[in-house]
C-alpha cells in the first residue's frame, strides 16, 4: 500500500535528516580548528538588546556597552579613578565670578561705591596681598545695560482663591558688574569679598533693578534676573589633533559644541539633559580647544564629559534634512532621534559599527586608524540571549566568551580549568528604605532596630557566596568619599528588641510587638525579577517576624513598582539598589527638597545639617575639602539610618581561559599578561590589548 508506506517513510526520513545535521556542527573543541578567525572574535552575551546607539540618547546599560566602544568622550576614568584625557589632551578648570555694583552703597573707606571706585579699591587690595583676593588672576569692569523682558509671576488670587499665574512685562536695569577671573573655583569667594567690603555683597538688593508696571516683583524673582553675585566655573579643554571618526573625517571642537547642542535641543528628548543643563555655553577656541562655561557651581558636571562625542558633519541640520528627504519624510519633524545614525552609528572609538540584528546580535569591527593604535581583536560581538540559563549553556558550548555570571555560577566554576573568573567591587549597593512619612518609621530607634535584626553577613556568605561586601553609607567603597571608619550596624536581635522597647514597642500575649494597642505591622516591597532582592526580602521578613513584627511582603513588576509605589511615595519599606556615580553629589537622593512625587528622595529623609552639606559638596571643586565633607555626610546618614545599608555586590564575569592581554615587549616580541579587574567595577580597561589564543599561554604578570 503506497499510502501506508509514505506514512512510515516520511517521518523516518525527516527524522534522519534532522539528526544527521548534528554531524556538521562544530563542538566546543572544534570551533577554532574549523575557523581560525574565531580567535579574533570576542563574543559577549547580554540578556537585553540595546535600544539606541547614540550616547546622547541612550539610557540603558546594553546600549551603553556598545556606545563606549564606538564613541569616545573628552575624558574618561583612569585605573585610579582620576580623570584621564581621551579626545581632550589636557584641561584647566578655573572660575569667572561676577559681582553686581550697587552704587548706592559706600565702600569700607567711606568713598561712594561707584563702579570705578569699587574696581580701584579691589585692585589696591589685591596689590596689597589681601588673602580674599589671593586666587584672583584678573579683575575687570563690565558695563551695565537695560532691557525689557516677559516673566511669569504667581500672585495670590482674590479672597481665598487659588493663586493665579500671569505674564508680566518687567524693565531690567542691569548695573555694571565686576568680573573676577579666579585661578581655582572657590564657592566661598563672595563670602570673603563680603567680609572685605564690610557686608557690601549682602546688602545688594536686586529688586531695585527690576521694575514692573502693575506687579510686585519679589526679591527672589529679581535675583534670578539680576543676580547680585554669580559663579561661573569654566573648563578649558585642549583637544587632541588628528583624531578621526570612522568615516575618516577629523574630529574638532565643532563636534564638542554640536554634541552639547544635540543634548540640549528639546526635540531630541535626551535623557542626559540634567547632566548638561548647568552648562551656560560651549565655545570653540579655534579647532583644537573648547571653553565650557557653567551657569553655577556644579562640580559633578565635569565628569559628564566622559560622554561620547557625536560627529557634527553627519548630524547637523543640513545632514538631517538631507536624510529626511531621502527617506521621504517631513524634514520639519525629523530630529536626531529619527536618524538612522542611531542604528548604524559612527564615532571615534576603538571599534566601528558593522551590523545590528535586533534581538540577535550587534557586531563591531576594530577601527584600524584608532589614535591609540588598533585593538588586537578584530571583531566584537554582542550577542543577545534573554535567558540566563541558556546564556550559561552557550558559554559551555563555546559560542560566547564571556557572560555576567551569578554568584552561585562563579562558585561552581571557579576551579574549572577552561574558564577564568573575575570579581571586583561594583558601584551599586542594595538597601532597605523606610518611608519616613509613616509614623512608625519616624523614630530612628525603630529604623536602627530593624537593621540590627538582619544578619547581613549571613546573606553575603550564603546568598551571595561572599561576592559582596558590607556597606555603611551611600558612597562607592572604592572612592575616597566613603568613610571606612563608620562601623556597620551589628547583628543583634536582642539589642534590637531593647531599642524597640525604648521606642515603646512591647510584646503582647501572642508575642507580637505593639504600642498603645497598635501592632507593629508593615509591608515590605520590591520589584520582581531580581533574585537577590527577593532573597533579602524573605530573609528580612523572617528576621523581623522573629522579633514579633508582622511583615507582609510583595513583589511587583518594575514599571508598577516604580510608577505606582516609589514615585508616589506609597509604600512602607522597600528593597532597592542604587548604582552610584563616582562623584560626591547626593543632592537628588537625600536632600529634603527632593521628596516630592517622582523625585528620588522617596523615603522622605530630611536633616538640615545633611542638606547644607549636600549643597556645599556639589559646589566644591577642591578635592580634599570635598572628600572631607563627603565623609562627614556619610557619617551623618549612617547615624540617621534612612536606609538599612546592606551590601555592595561584586561584579562577576566568567571568561574563556584563553583570553589574555598581549602587549609588545621592549624587544618587539609579544608579551602576554593576564586580564585584571579595575576599580571601576569592570575588566575591560585594557580591552584593546585583549587577544584570544589557540592554546592557553603563560602570562608574565
Amino acid at each position: 500500500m503506497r499510502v501506508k508506506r509514505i506514512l512510515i517513510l516520511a517521518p523516518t526520513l525527516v527524522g534522519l535528516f534532522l539528526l544527521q545535521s548534528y554531524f556538521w556542527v562544530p563542538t566546543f573543541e572544534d570551533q577554532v580548528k574549523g575557523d581560525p578567525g574565531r580567535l579574533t572574535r570576542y563574543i559577549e552575551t547580554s540578556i537585553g538588546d540595546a535600544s539606541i546607539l547614540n550616547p546622547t540618547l541612550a539610557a540603558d546599560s546594553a546600549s551603553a556597552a556598545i556606545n563606549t566602544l564606538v564613541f569616545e568622550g573628552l575624558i574618561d576614568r583612569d585605573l585610579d579613578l582620576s580623570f584621564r584625557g581621551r579626545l581632550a589632551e589636557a584641561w584647566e578648570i578655573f572660575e569667572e565670578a561676577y559681582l553686581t555694583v550697587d552704587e548706592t552703597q559706600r565702600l569700607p573707606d567711606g568713598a561712594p561705591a561707584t563702579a570705578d571706585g569699587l574696581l580701584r579699591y579691589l585692585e589696591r587690595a589685591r596689590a596689597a596681598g589681601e588673602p580674599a583676593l589671593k586666587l584672583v588672576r584678573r579683575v575687570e569692569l563690565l558695563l551695565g545695560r537695560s532691557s525689557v523682558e516677559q516673566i511669569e509671576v504667581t500672585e495670590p488670587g482674590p479672597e481665598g482663591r487659588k493663586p493665579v499665574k500671569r505674564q508680566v512685562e518687567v524693565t531690567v536695569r542691569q548695573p555694571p558688574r565686576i568680573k573676577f577671573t579666579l585661578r581655582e573655583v572657590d564657592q566661598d569667594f563672595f563670602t570673603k569679598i563680603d567680609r572685605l567690603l564690610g557686608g557690601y555683597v549682602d546688602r545688594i538688593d536686586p529688586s531695585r533693578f527690576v521694575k514692573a508696571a502693575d506687579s510686585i516683583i519679589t526679591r527672589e524673582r529679581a535675583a534670578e534676573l539680576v543676580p547680585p553675585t554669580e559663579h561661573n566655573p569654566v573648563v578649558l579643554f585642549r583637544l587632541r589633533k588628528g583624531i578621526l571618526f570612522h568615516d575618516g573625517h577629523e574630529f574638532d571642537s565643532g563636534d564638542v559644541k554640536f554634541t552639547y547642542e544635540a543634548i540640549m535641543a528639546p526635540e531630541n528628548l535626551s535623557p542626559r539633559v540634567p547632566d548638561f543643563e548647568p552648562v551656560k555655553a560651549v565655545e570653540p577656541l579655534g579647532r583644537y580647544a573648547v571653553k565650557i562655561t557653567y551657569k553655577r557651581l556644579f562640580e559633578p558636571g565635569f565628569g559628564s564629559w566622559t560622554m561620547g562625542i557625536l560627529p557634527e558633519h553627519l548630524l547637523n541640520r543640513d545632514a538631517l534634512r538631507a536624510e529626511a528627504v531621502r527617506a521621504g519624510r517631513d524634514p520639519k519633524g525629523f530630529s536626531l532621534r529619527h536618524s538612522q545614525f542611531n542604528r548604524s552609528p559612527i564615532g571615534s572609538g576603538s571599534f566601528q559599527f558593522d551590523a545590528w540584528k535586533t534581538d540577535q546580535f550587534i557586531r563591531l569591527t576594530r577601527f584600524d586608524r584608532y589614535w591609540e593604535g588598533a585593538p588586537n581583536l578584530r571583531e566584537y560581538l554582542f550577542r543577545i540571549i534573554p535567558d540566563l540559563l541558556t546564556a550559561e549553556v552557550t558559554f559551555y558550548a563555546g559560542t560566547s566568551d564571556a557572560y555576567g555570571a551569578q554568584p552561585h555560577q562563579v562558585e561552581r566554576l571557579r576551579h574549572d580549568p577552561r574558564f577564568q573568573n573575575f570579581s571586583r567591587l561594583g558601584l551599586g549597593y542594595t538597601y532597605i528604605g523606610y518611608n519616613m512619612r509613616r509614623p512608625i518609621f519616624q523614630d530612628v530607634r525603630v529604623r536602627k532596630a530593624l537593621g540590627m535584626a538582619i544578619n547581613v553577613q549571613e546573606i553575603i556568605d550564603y546568598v551571595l557566596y561572599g561576592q559582596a561586601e558590607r556597606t555603611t553609607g551611600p558612597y562607592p567603597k572604592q572612592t575616597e568619599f566613603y568613610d571606612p571608619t563608620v562601623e556597620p550596624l551589628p547583628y543583634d536581635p536582642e539589642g534590637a528588641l531593647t531599642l524597640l522597647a525604648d521606642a515603646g514597642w512591647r510584646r503582647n500575649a501572642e508575642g507580637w510587638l505593639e504600642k498603645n494597642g497598635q501592632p507593629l505591622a508593615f509591608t515590605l516591597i520590591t520589584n520582581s525579577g531580581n533574585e537577590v532582592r527577593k532573597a533579602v526580602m524573605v530573609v528580612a521578613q523572617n528576621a523581623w517576624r522573629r522579633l514579633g513584627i508582622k511583615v507582609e511582603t510583595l513583589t511587583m513588576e518594575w514599571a508598577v513598582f516604580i510608577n505606582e509605589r516609589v514615585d508616589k511615595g506609597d509604600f512602607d519599606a522597600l528593597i532597592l539598589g542604587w548604582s552610584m556615580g563616582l562623584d560626591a553629589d547626593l543632592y537628588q537622593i537625600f536632600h529634603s527638597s527632593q521628596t516630592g512625587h517622582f523625585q528620588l528622595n522617596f523615603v522622605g529623609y530630611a536633616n538640615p545639617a545633611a542638606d547644607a552639606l549636600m549643597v556645599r559638596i556639589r559646589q566644591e571643586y577642591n578635592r580634599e575639602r570635598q572628600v572631607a565633607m563627603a565623609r562627614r555626610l556619610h557619617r551623618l546618614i549612617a547615624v540617621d539610618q534612612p536606609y538599612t545599608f546592606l551590601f555592595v555586590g561584586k561584579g562577576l564575569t566568567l571568561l574563556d581561559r584563553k583570553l589574555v592581554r598581549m602587549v609588545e615587549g621592549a624587544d618587539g616580541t609579544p608579551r602576554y599578561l593576564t586580564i585584571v579587574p579595575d576599580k571601576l567595577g569592570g575588566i575591560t580597561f585594557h580591552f584593546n590589548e585583549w587577544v584570544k589564543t589557540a592554546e592557553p599561554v603563560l602570562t608574565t604578570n
Partner: protein
Amino acid sequence: MAQGAATGPAAVMVSPSRLAWRSFLRDRIAVAGMMACTLFFVVALFGLLVTKGDHPVLDPRQVRLADKFRAPLSLPNRLAVPIEALPRLGVYLLGTDELGRDVFARMLEGAFVSLSVGFVAVGIAVAIGIIFGGIAGYYGRVRILRLMSVDTLITGLIDVALSFPAFFLILTVVAILRPSIWNIMVVIGLTSWEGTARFVRAEILALREQDFVQAARALGVSGPRVILRHLLPNAVAPVLVSATLGIAGAILTESALSFLGFGVPPPDATWGNILSDGKNYLFDAWWLTIIPGTAILVIVLAFNLFGEGLREAFNPRLRQL
C-alpha cells in the same frame, strides 16, 4: 444527572450515565488518572492544614541560610541551624532551596494554591461558558434591536475570543494588570470559556425542541429554570470533560507565566513558581527543578487522562466497541 430516567417506569434499563460510568471504570488509564487527581486533592487539603497559620506544623517560609541546597533526604546541620528552625520531620524529605527552605513544605503549600488557580480559573470559564452557551442555545432566535439575533451575537463573541492568540493575550493582560493570584485566575478564566459555551449551546440547541422541554414550557416553567433544571443536566458530560481538561490547562498556563516572570507572585507558592525559581539552580540543585517539574507533569497528566477517559466514556459511538 438524568435522575428522571432512572426512577421512571423504564428503571430496569440502565441509564446512559451509568453506562458511561461503567465504561469509564473499564478504562484503567483513566481510572488511574482519576485516582491521582483525588490524591492531589487530599494532598492539597492536607498541605493547607499543615502549612498555614503563624506557627504551622511544617513551615514553608522558614529560612535556614546555612542549610541551603541540601539534597533530598539529607539531615539538617544541627550545629549551624537554630533549634527552633530545624525541620519538624527531622529530615529534608525533598531537600532545601536556595534559602534553605524545606522544599517538601513548599510543595505542600503550593499544591493548594496551584489547585485553586486551576479550579477558580475553570470555575469562571465554565460559568461564563454556561451562561453564554445557555443564552445562545435557548434564546438564540431573539433579535436585538432588529439587527442581529442573540445567537449571532454570542457566536460572534466566541469567534472574537477564539481569534486572539490565547497565551499571548493572557501574557499581555497579566503584564498590564500586574501579576496577582486573582488577576491570573480571572484572566485565564476569561480566555478559556469558548469551548464550554460552544458545547452547551450545541447541546441545548439539540434538546430544546424535544418533548420534555416542550412539556416543561407548556407548564409555564420559566426560561432560566428550563435551562438549569432540564437542559443543563444533559449537557453536564461535555462541560465536565472540558472542565477537567481546563484545570490541566490552567495549571500549565500558570507555570508558563511564572517562567516568563508573570506568574503568581510570592509569598504564595505555586508549583509553577517553585519550578521557575528552581530552574535558575538547575546545575547546582537538580531537585529544585525536577521535583516541581515532575509534580506538574504528573498532575496535569492525571487531569488530562481523566478528562480524556470521561470523553470517551460519554461518547456512545465508541462505547459500543
